[in-house]
């Protein structure tokens, strides 16, 4: 058992995975509520909370820090809303005014008072996930890394929040008016979500710092949003991406000898890119494929309508022939051949020599397009 907790590789990957899972649990709802940038604001401004709590109690982590962070996060959002409510400043500018100010104050206090502590500007920004296994607490005779303890607890807290308030979260995310009408207090739930985001941010702070945390919160849910339309799968896929990023990021970082936290965060981007390109419904490739299929289907419909219109006309011999497709429909030879091949394959058209005839199915398709009001003949 101790071998497990003493294994630095495992501990680092586990910490990263916990940050990823906890981040996407809260991140999913922030992304769906279109408040993703609030996680950016919160993760910056908790630096202020951390340094204030440190100055008051000299505690670098632990319960006081976590409560302090939750309060700072709520304070950030409260101040932002206060500034926006004056109606002198737009909401986005209000966010952009409040959190840099708190962050700047935090960094300055670090500069002034925390010079000799191991927290410095770099930890503030980047974290030190590579060293999480050094800082341990004995639990039941086992030396467990502090980062694992706190990240584990916070992840459980996030998971419990999502499970217990799943119905309420879902409703207030997708239909806040209805949630309010039914008495679910979506505002309270929102503030609780933000307090949890701050809590998660401060627990993840030692591992990944203030800014990289943003990637763990926003990117996995965003990628998951491209892969599914349902809430539970979105939560699971987001968490999965967080874990996968932690594992792959660790090995890549070791191989290239670069920042582990940075690489883990960057790997979430690789998954986002994959989802963006290859996602089954919303991915670029799927979009192009749909458009491609749509174009061909449209061309086949054009063909059957053309044949249908001229079927009973006197000039059927010159209209309903293969060569007419190029002249009368303005298609290139290759296009005409492709459309014809597709229509033959789908059983819409029959070919005898140069002449083209509609199958009953082709005729019905054309009739439904040209006279949609008439009842079907078959």
């Amino acid at each position, binding site marked *: 058992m101790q071998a497990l907790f003493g294994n630095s590789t495992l501990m680092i990957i586990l910490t990263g995975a916990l940050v990823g899972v906890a981040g996407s649990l809260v991140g999913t709802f922030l992304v769906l509520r279109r408040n993703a940038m609030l996680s950016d604001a919160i993760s910056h401004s908790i630096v202020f909370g951390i340094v204030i709590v440190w100055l008051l109690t000299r505690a670098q982590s632990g319960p006081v820090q976590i409560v302090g962070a939750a309060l700072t996060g709520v304070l950030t959002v409260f101040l932002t809303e206060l500034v926006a409510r004056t109606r002198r400043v737009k909401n986005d500018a209000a966010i*952009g005014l409040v959190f840099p100010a708190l962050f700047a104050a935090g960094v300055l206090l670090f500069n002034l008072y925390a010079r000799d502590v191991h927290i410095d500007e770099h930890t503030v*920004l980047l974290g030190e996930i590579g060293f999480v296994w050094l800082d341990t607490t004995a639990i039941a005779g086992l030396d467990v890394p502090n980062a694992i303890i706190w990240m584990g607890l916070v992840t459980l807290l996030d998971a419990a929040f999502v499970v217990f308030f799943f119905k309420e979260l879902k409703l207030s995310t997708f239909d806040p008016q209805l949630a309010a009408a039914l008495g679910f207090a979506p505002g309270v739930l929102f503030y609780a979500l933000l307090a949890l985001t701050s809590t998660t941010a401060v627990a993840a702070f030692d591992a990944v710092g203030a*800014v990289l945390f943003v990637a763990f919160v926003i990117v996995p849910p965003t990628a998951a*949003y491209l892969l599914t339309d349902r809430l539970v799968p979105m939560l699971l896929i987001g968490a999965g991406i967080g874990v996968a990023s932690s594992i792959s990021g660790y090995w890549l970082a070791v191989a290239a000898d670069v920042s582990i936290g940075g690489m883990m965060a960057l790997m979430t981007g690789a998954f986002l890119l994959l989802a963006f390109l290859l996602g089954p419904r919303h991915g670029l490739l799927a979009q192009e494929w749909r458009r491609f299929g749509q174009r061909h289907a449209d061309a086949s419909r054009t063909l059957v309508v053309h044949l249908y219109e001229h079927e009973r006309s006197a000039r059927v011999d010159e209209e309903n022939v293969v060569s007419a497709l190029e002249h009368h429909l303005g298609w290139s030879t290759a296009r005409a051949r492709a459309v014809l091949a597709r229509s033959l394959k789908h059983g819409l058209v029959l070919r005898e020599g140069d002449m083209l005839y509609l199958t009953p199915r082709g005729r019905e398709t054309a009739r439904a397009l040209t006279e949609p009001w008439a009842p079907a003949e078959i």
Partner: protein
Amino acid sequence: MTGLVELLSDYTVQNVAMGAVLLGIASGVLGCFAVLRQQSLLGDTLAHAALPGVCIGFLIAGTRDMGWIMAGALGTSILAALFVLALTRRTRIKTDAGLGSALGLTFAAGVVLLTYIQGQSNASQGGLDTFLFGQAAATLRSDLWLMGGVTIAAVALVLGCWKQFKLVTFDPEFARAVGLPVALLETVLTAMIALAVVIGLQMVGVVLMTSMVIAPAVAARQWVKRLEHMVLLAVGVGIVSGLVGALISASVQNLATGPLVVLAATAIVAVSILLAPGRGVLWEQIRHWRDRRTIGQRQMLTTLYKLAAHHRDPDYPAETGMLDSFHGTRTQRALRQLQRRGLVEPVAHMPGEGRHWVLTEAGRREAERVLKTMTPEMA
């Protein structure tokens, strides 16, 4: 005073001051458009996205060469903007998630590159960290020439396309209707946020540059209404906060410049929002209190007048407690204020009862005047 002269004749301080002026000009001018077009948070993303560019510039040049670093930063910032655009235009991802993703990922890429460079054990890599929070004291004269060149180019662009930029900012629909290349102009305006970020790299750093895009413009907006004035004032705010931050940072050991500049700018914003003439929140609050007081007094006057009329006694004495319960609130203050204006006066009353009040002759006239201005429903 001699201390100040001494400070200003110092070579480093001169550099820092010039850097602050350039920062003020760039962020003031370019920030106004960003804030008015509600692209404030794009500044945040573009600023963080400059970090990998700084590293790439460094890797290409092999040393801390400001030209390459600025070029790299500009490049990755614009790439990040395009990434956000692609993500939000081509899929159902909303702007906030797009911005947040780009911010987190570009910064992660920057961190990876930064540690990669540090791993190369290159002797000249020491300076890159200062781009995180800015270190004004590290500014070289040659850096200033570059920053100055970019600033002048940006300002020239804004002046040259002033009318077009203004129209696109305030009424893009109309701009499209009169045949302006709106998409191009919007792209240029977005790219200019990246330009402001690049100019601020040395002074403020990538993490806090967002504030310098937003704060001067927001502060300036409180005092003036016209875009021309807003831009000029924003430049002033930018320069002042840049100078304050840079000079403090240059004279105290080991204080990063960025946070100081940002706090100075934020303080100016706070003062502007509270105190700007006309728009100031404080003035509005005072107006609000004054209105409430006036309305309270008028209500009290008409109540007393109607009571007197109802009892057919012009000198009908009304007890404070009764007035309280009639108005549903404490009326003591309104009565005192009316007494000071000579419109009501206390009269002798039975012991054990509350104070009694009657209208004076002036009070009766005032009440009649007020009642005449009221609509029948109100009265």
